[in-house]
C-alpha cells in the first residue's frame, strides 16, 4: 500500500528479472562478497527483532566505505529501487524489515570508532558501532555515552539514531536526541549530507531533530558524533515493595513531585517479578503487588542526600519494604531482573509480544488495572515492566504463536493496550518505534491530515520515496481498512469542504 513503485513499473518486470537488474547495477560498485541475493544467503536479513514479520529482500548489499554507500544509493535511485538500511537488526517494531522489491543495505561493516575526544567529551563513531562499545571506549577517560537501551550490548548507534532510543536512564540523561550532536550520511539520491554539527546549533531548521527517530526514512546515517558525559562517582539503587499497584503508581508521581529526578525509576508487577526471580534469583519480594527500583547517582554527598529524600517519599507512600544497595554488586543484582525481563518472559511462555506505549505518569495504576481486565477479556497472561519515571510501559503479552487463535487474541490485546494508552493521553510508541508493527495504531493517534503532513516531510527529504518506504506512516487507505481514524474535536477534518453522501 505504501509501495513506492507504480504498478506499471512493478508489472513490467518479474521479481527475478528485477533482481538480476539490481545485481547488475550494483556489481560494479561492490566487492563480490558484499553483494548477496541467493535465498539461502539473504534469509538472515528477513526480519529484525520483531520476528513475527518476515520478508526476504531482493538483494542485500554490505558496503564497506562511504563511497560504496553513495554508489549503491545512486544506482538504486536511478532504478527506482527501495533501500532499507539496517544496523544490528535488534529493533522491535520491524523498522528494518526488508522490502520485497528492495535492497537491504547492511551497515554492519561501519564498525570503527573514529575518535574519542576526552577534551570536547565527544565520540565520533561509524554507524555500526555498538552502543555499549562507545561507553567501553570512553571508560578510560571516566566518560560514557548515556542512553542505554536494554539491547545496548548488540544494538548500533545508527539504529539508535533511527529509533531515538532511550533506556533506563533517560529520565535524567535524555534520549538519543539529547545526546547526539551530528549525523553524517547520505540522501536517498546518494548525496553526502550532514545534520547538526559539533557546535550546539546550526543555521536553518533543526533537521537533526527530525532525522533522529525517523526510522531510516529520511537519510542513511553513516557516522555519528555523540556527547560523552562524566561517569557518576557513585550510583545506589533503592528497591521498594508495595502491596498495591495504585500505591506504587502514586509513589512514582510523589518522587517526581518532591523535586527529585532519579537516574532510573522502574516498576515491575507481580507476575513479572515472579518470572525474573525464577530466572536471576536476585531476591525480589515475591509477595509485592509491585516493585519499584529507584536509582540515584552523582557524588557520594549528592547520592546520600538524594537517597535519604527518596526513602522518605517511598515510605510515606506506603512501601512495605525498602532495601538500598550497599555496594555495586548489590546494585547490579537489583537491576539484573529488570534487565532480564525479556529473556525471563521467553522462559515462561513459547512467545511473547512486547508493547511500548507511554502514558502520563499519574495513569500508571490505571493502565495496570486496565491491563488486568484485558487479561480476562482476551484470556491471555501479561507481565509488566515499566520505565515508570517516564511513563513508558513494556507489557509483555504471553501467547503461543502456533495457536492461531492465541496469536489473534494477542494482537487484539496489544491494540487494546495501545488505544487505551492514547485515550489516557499517551502515545503508541515510547522508544521501540512504529516500523511496520504499529502502522495501524498510528491511525488511532494521528488524524489523516497529520499523517499526510508526515508524508510531506518524507517527500521533502526523499522525493522518490525510496528510503525504507511503507514504514512509520500509515496511508489513508490503510487507516480506512483498519476502520479507525481519529478526528479531533475542534479541528479540521481532512477534506472538510468536500461534500459527503
Amino acid at each position, binding site marked *: 500500500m505504501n509501495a513506492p513503485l507504480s504498478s506499471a513499473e512493478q508489472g513490467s518486470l518479474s521479481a527475478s528479472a528485477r533482481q538480476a537488474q539490481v545485481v547488475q547495477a550494483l556489481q560494479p560498485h561492490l566487492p563480490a562478497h558484499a553483494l548477496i541475493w541467493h535465498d539461502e544467503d539473504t534469509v538472515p536479513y528477513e526480519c529484525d527483532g520483531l520476528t513475527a514479520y518476515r520478508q526476504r529482500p531482493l538483494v542485500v548489499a554490505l558496503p564497506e566505505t562511504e563511497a560504496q554507500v553513495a554508489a549503491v544509493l545512486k544506482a538504486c535511485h536511478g532504478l527506482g529501487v527501495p533501500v532499507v538500511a539496517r544496523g544490528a537488526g535488534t529493533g522491535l517494531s520491524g523498522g528494518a524489515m526488508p522490502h520485497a522489491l528492495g535492497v537491504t543495505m547492511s551497515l554492519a561493516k561501519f564498525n570503527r570508532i573514529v575518535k574519542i575526544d576526552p577534551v570536547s567529551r565527544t565520540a565520533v563513531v561509524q554507524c555500526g558501532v555498538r552502543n555499549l562499545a562507545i561507553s567501553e571506549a570512553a571508560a578510560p577517560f571516566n566518560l560514557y555515552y548515556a542512553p542505554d537501551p536494554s539491547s545496548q550490548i548488540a544494538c548500533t548507534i545508527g539504529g539508535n539514531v533511527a529509533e531515538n532510543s532511550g533506556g533506563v536512564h533517560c529520565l535524567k540523561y535524555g534520549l538519543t536526541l539529547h545526546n547526539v550532536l551530528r549525523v553524517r550520511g547520505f540522501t536517498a539520491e546518494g548525496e553526502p549530507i550532514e545534520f547538526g*554539527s559539533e557546535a*550546539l*546549533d546550526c543555521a*536553518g531548521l533543526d533537521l537533526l531533530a527530525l532525522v533522529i527517530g525517523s526510522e531510516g526514512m529520511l537519510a542513511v546515517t553513516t557516522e555519528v558524533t555523540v556527547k560523552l558525559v562524566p561517569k557518576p562517582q557513585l550510583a545506589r539503587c533503592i528497591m521498594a515493595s508495595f502491596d498495591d499497584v495504585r500505591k506504587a503508581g502514586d509513589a512514582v508521581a510523589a518522587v517526581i513531585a518532591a523535586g527529585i529526578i532519579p537516574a532510573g525509576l522502574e516498576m515491575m508487577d507481580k507476575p513479572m517479578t515472579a518470572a525474573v526471580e525464577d530466572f536471576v534469583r536476585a531476591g525480589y519480594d515475591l509477595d509485592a503487588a509491585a516493585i519499584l527500583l529507584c536509582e540515584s547517582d552523582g557524588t557520594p554527598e549528592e547520592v546520600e542526600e538524594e537517597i535519604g529524600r527518596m526513602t522518605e517519599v517511598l515510605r510515606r507512600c506506603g512501601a512495605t519494604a525498602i532495601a538500598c544497595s550497599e555496594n555495586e554488586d548489590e546494585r547490579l543484582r537489583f537491576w539484573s531482573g529488570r534487565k532480564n525481563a525479556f529473556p525471563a518472559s521467553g522462559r515462561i511462555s513459547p512467545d511473547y509480544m512486547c508493547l511500548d506505549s507511554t502514558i502520563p505518569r499519574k495513569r500508571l495504576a490505571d493502565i495496570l488495572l486496565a491491563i488486568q481486565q484485558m487479561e480476562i477479556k482476551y484470556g491471555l497472561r501479561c507481565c509488566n515492566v515499566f520505565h515508570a519515571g517516564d511513563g513508558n510501559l513494556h507489557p509483555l503479552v504471553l501467547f503461543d504463536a502456533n495457536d492461531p487463535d492465541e496469536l489473534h487474541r494477542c494482537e487484539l490485546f496489544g491494540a487494546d493496550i495501545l488505544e487505551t494508552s492514547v485515550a489516557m493521553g499517551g502515545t503508541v510508541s515510547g*522508544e521501540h518505534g512504529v516500523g511496520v508493527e504499529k502502522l495501524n495504531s498510528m491511525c488511532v493517534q494521528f488524524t489523516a491530515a497529520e499523517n499526510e503532513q508526515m508524508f510531506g516531510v518524507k517527500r521533502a527529504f526523499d522525493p522518490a520515496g525510496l528510503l525504507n518506504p511503507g514504514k512509520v506512516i500509515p496511508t489513508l487507505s490503510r487507516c480506512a481498512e483498519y476502520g479507525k481514524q481519529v478526528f479531533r474535536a475542534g479541528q479540521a477534518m481532512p477534506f472538510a469542504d468536500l461534500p459527503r453522501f
Partner: protein
Amino acid sequence: MTTTALDEIVERIRAAAADRATLSIRGGNTKAFYGEAAHGAALETAALAGITSYEPSELVVTVGAGTPLAELEALLAGQGQCLPFEPPRFAGGGTVGGMIAAGLSGPARASVGAVRDYLLGLTLVNGRGEVLVFGGQVMKNVAGYDVSRVLAGSMGALGLVAQASLKVLPVAPAEATLDFACGQADALRLLNEWGGRPLPLNASVWRLRDGVGVLSLRLRGAVAAVEAACAQLGGERQDAERAAAGWQALRDQQHPWFSAGAAALWRLSVPQTAPVLDLDGAPLVEWHGGQRWYLAPPGESHRVRAAARAAGGHATLFRPAAGARHEARFDALSAPLERIHRALLNEFDPDAVFDRGRLLPATTTAH
C-alpha cells in the same frame, strides 16, 4: 486558548492562502530585530493565551502560544519548577510562541539543553489552515516523525504554533557563582577540563571587566554537590543576590557589554573546544565556550563568518549596526540542506502564506 481564537486564525490563514497574501506571525514582538526583516500583514497570537494544563508531578505544562513568557515562568516558580534553558526575554513581554519560534536559549544551554530539548509536543496550524497535533505530553514518544521539535527555531516559516507542551524541571536546591581572574584561552581550557568531571556546572561567562579577563561559573544542583564543587574549584564565591542579577542581565542581554557602541552584534556558535578565534576585540563567551559574542564594525561579515566556519561552527548577525546596509543574518546552507529546507517549507505551506524570508531569504549563495 479558545476554540474561537483558533478558528479565527485558521480563517485568516485560509484567506491569505486564497489571496496569495503573506502573513507574519507575531507574539510579543520583542524579537523583531532577530532574523531577516519581516514581511506581510501581522498575524497576532495574543488571543491564543492561557495555561491549558499544568501538573507539577508530570513535569509538563501545556500552554497557549500567546501566553506571556513571564506569566508561564511565574506559574512554574510558584511550584518550585522552571524552564531550565532560560529563554532570553530581551525587552520583556515576549510569548511562549515567540520563544519556540526563535529557538533561543540562555546561559544554562550548554549544560541543560535548548528549547527543542524541552519541547514535547505542539498544535500547529500549517499553511493550508489545517490544525495538526504532533508529539504529546509525555517524555518518550517515537510515534511518527518528531515534527514538533523542528518548529523550535523555525522563525514562523513552517506554520503557526498554537499551543505547546513543555517539559519543566524542579529548580535546583542549591546554586553558587564563582569568579576566576583569567584570560580567554585559560578560561576555555578550564571549562573543557571541568566539563569532563562530575561537577554540577550550569552556566559560564567570560568577558573583560575593566580590561581584566574574568570567568564566572554558575553551579546548580544538590546542596552537597554544589558545596563540594565550590571547595574543589576555588575561585571567588560571589554574593548570591548580585550574582543572580548578573545572570539575569546576561540572559536578557541587558548586560552593559551588549550595549557597547554602534557596532554589529555577532553570535558565533562553535564547538566548545574551539580555540580563541582570530577576530578583533574581546568576545563575551558563554555556553562553556560554545557561544561567543563579538562586536564588529559593519563590513566585517565575511571575516566573522569565515572565523566561525573555520572553527566548525556558524555565525549569526544578531543585531546589525544602526544604519548599516543590509547583510544576510544567517549563514548560507549547503546545497542539499537548502534543497530540503525549501521542500519542507513547500510541504508545510504550499502557498507561502507564512513569511519564510525571515528564516531563509529568497536567494542565498551556498558555500
